[in-house]
């Protein structure tokens, strides 16, 4: 059937590929083709530059990766960064979501605190690093603070948006069904905001992951950011590249994981 579609539709090539390997297979093939293009371009550039300090080839980088993996260095740095992201992100979410829900529900609280939020929001996480170091010293704590700051605003603002866009008819219906304040927040406002909250969580996790690297470049003794910084100082460019690629891979894996979880968090959206 795919073959037929391909022939009639004139999209010949994709048609027969799909016919042989199926649609999922086609997607995989395209991803590999894309990566191959990247590696080939990279190697050509490395060949032209001919200087492994400026740009090591893909092969050299792979060797460096193998070494970093077998020595366990890469894993320990990954774990250090992941821990900071997960903890900072969890702190941010556990403050941002309840706060947003309360602010959506209580207008006095909203009027009183929203201007502060608007003032703090445009400050990039990196601008908090000096304060974080002053307050928490060097090591894990300032990184938690930075990853939390980075995740806080996307989560909070999305959740708040969800909280205030709860539909009046749902509030009215719940009142008629005997819902008190607590039930109104927990059973109506929170679930009704969940699609927004989830968007905030995905964006927030991405932001948190980016921020951890920034924090580690400056204020840490471990983690992927620290490894990159350290390798740069030692002119081990291949290790820098390994660190960067690891960050990219893990970041997109985390987001893909959350997107996969969506069907369990928002089951009513999954069925449409």
């Amino acid at each position, binding site marked *: 059937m795919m073959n037929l579609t391909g022939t009639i539709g004139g999209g010949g090539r994709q048609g027969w590929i799909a016919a042989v390997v199926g649609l999922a297979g086609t997607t995989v093939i395209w991803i590999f083709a894309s990566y191959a293009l990247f590696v080939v371009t990279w190697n050509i550039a490395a060949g032209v530059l001919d200087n492994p300090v400026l740009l090591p080839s893909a092969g050299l980088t792979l060797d460096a990766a193998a070494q970093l993996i077998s020595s366990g260095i890469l894993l320990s740095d990954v774990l250090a960064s992941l821990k900071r992201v997960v903890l900072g992100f969890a702190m941010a979410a556990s403050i941002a979501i309840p706060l947003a829900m309360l602010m959506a529900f209580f207008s006095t609280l909203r009027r009183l605190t929203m201007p502060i939020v608007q003032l703090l929001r445009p400050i990039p996480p990196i601008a908090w690093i000096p304060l974080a170091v002053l307050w928490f010293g060097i090591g894990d704590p300032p990184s938690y603070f930075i990853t939390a700051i980075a995740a806080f605003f996307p989560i909070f603002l999305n959740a708040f948006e969800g909280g205030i866009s709860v539909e009046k*008819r749902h509030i*009215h*219906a719940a*009142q*008629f*069904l*005997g*819902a008190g304040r607590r039930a109104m927040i927990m059973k109506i406002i929170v679930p009704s905001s969940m699609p927004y909250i989830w968007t905030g969580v995905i964006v927030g996790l991405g932001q948190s992951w980016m921020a951890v690297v920034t924090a580690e470049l400056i204020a840490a003794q471990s983690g992927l950011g620290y490894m990159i910084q350290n390798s740069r100082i030692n002119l081990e460019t291949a290790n820098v590249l390994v660190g960067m690629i690891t960050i990219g891979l893990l970041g997109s894996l985390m987001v893909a994981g959350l997107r996969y979880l969506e069907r369990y968090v*928002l089951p009513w959206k999954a*069925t449409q």
Partner: protein
Amino acid sequence: MTDLSTPTLATPLFPAANADRAAPATGHIRVEQLRVVFGRGANATLAVDDASIEVKPGEFVSIIGPSGCGKSTLLNVVAGFVAPTAGSSTVDGKPTDKPGADRGMVFQQYSLFPWLTVRKNVEFGLRQQGLPLSRREQMARTLLGLAGLLAFENHYPDQLSGGMRQRVGIVRALATSPQVLLMDEPFGALDAQTRQVMQQILTNMWQRFKLSVLFITHDIDESIYLSDRVYVMTARPGRIKAEIPIDLPRPRTPEIAFTPEFLALKQQLRALISAESLLAMGGELKDGGLEGFELSVGEKGVGDLL
């Protein structure tokens, strides 16, 4: 279509479901000399003026009137969303100053919670009453069965048709055993066929649960078919223009729409409303326009719907 008959329960789950019961003593809606003004000063709108209505326990009463005449406003006062400017509204002597589980409400717009399955929607009110899970499930499933929706208990509202959603809405409102059911044009968004089925289901539910129903509609046929009494409202500011008893025998079938008694009532209501509709439209249409409202009845072909 779905099973429209009223299945008998092995054990009566709901106190009100006992059909042998005498007319219930509760669920008495009284609205007296109600006046509602929205806004202040130059922007003030007199929406309802000196309106008095009553729904006796177990009675089915409709309000019909031209668009914008204040029907929803009146219902919202009984619901507790709108405070009277003057006059009073009580259910069983208690002022209706806020919404509550003693009254059930079915809205014109679907108001099911999209994040809950059909059964969880129905269970919502029972949960607020603190019923244990097994009991909630049992009651919800029984009610869904009565409305022919048991097969859809685990669906989400977005997976249902409009008619099904509104049926779930009715079932959800009934689950907490309110004495009073308030309905604001609940079938307005449905096609004629679905509407007929819904009217049948509503009648069944009403008789089974011995509710007092206050029902708002634009549709004359609907008001006659369903009601014991119909109030006709004037154009804004809404006053009660007429109170028409509907003494048609029950149970009623859609074929009743062809009986002379039904047609006479229809003519009567039509005349009352068309005059008000013209008023509501600011007299753009003069007397000639009236002829349009007096077209022969029965053009809908109602009988073959069920």
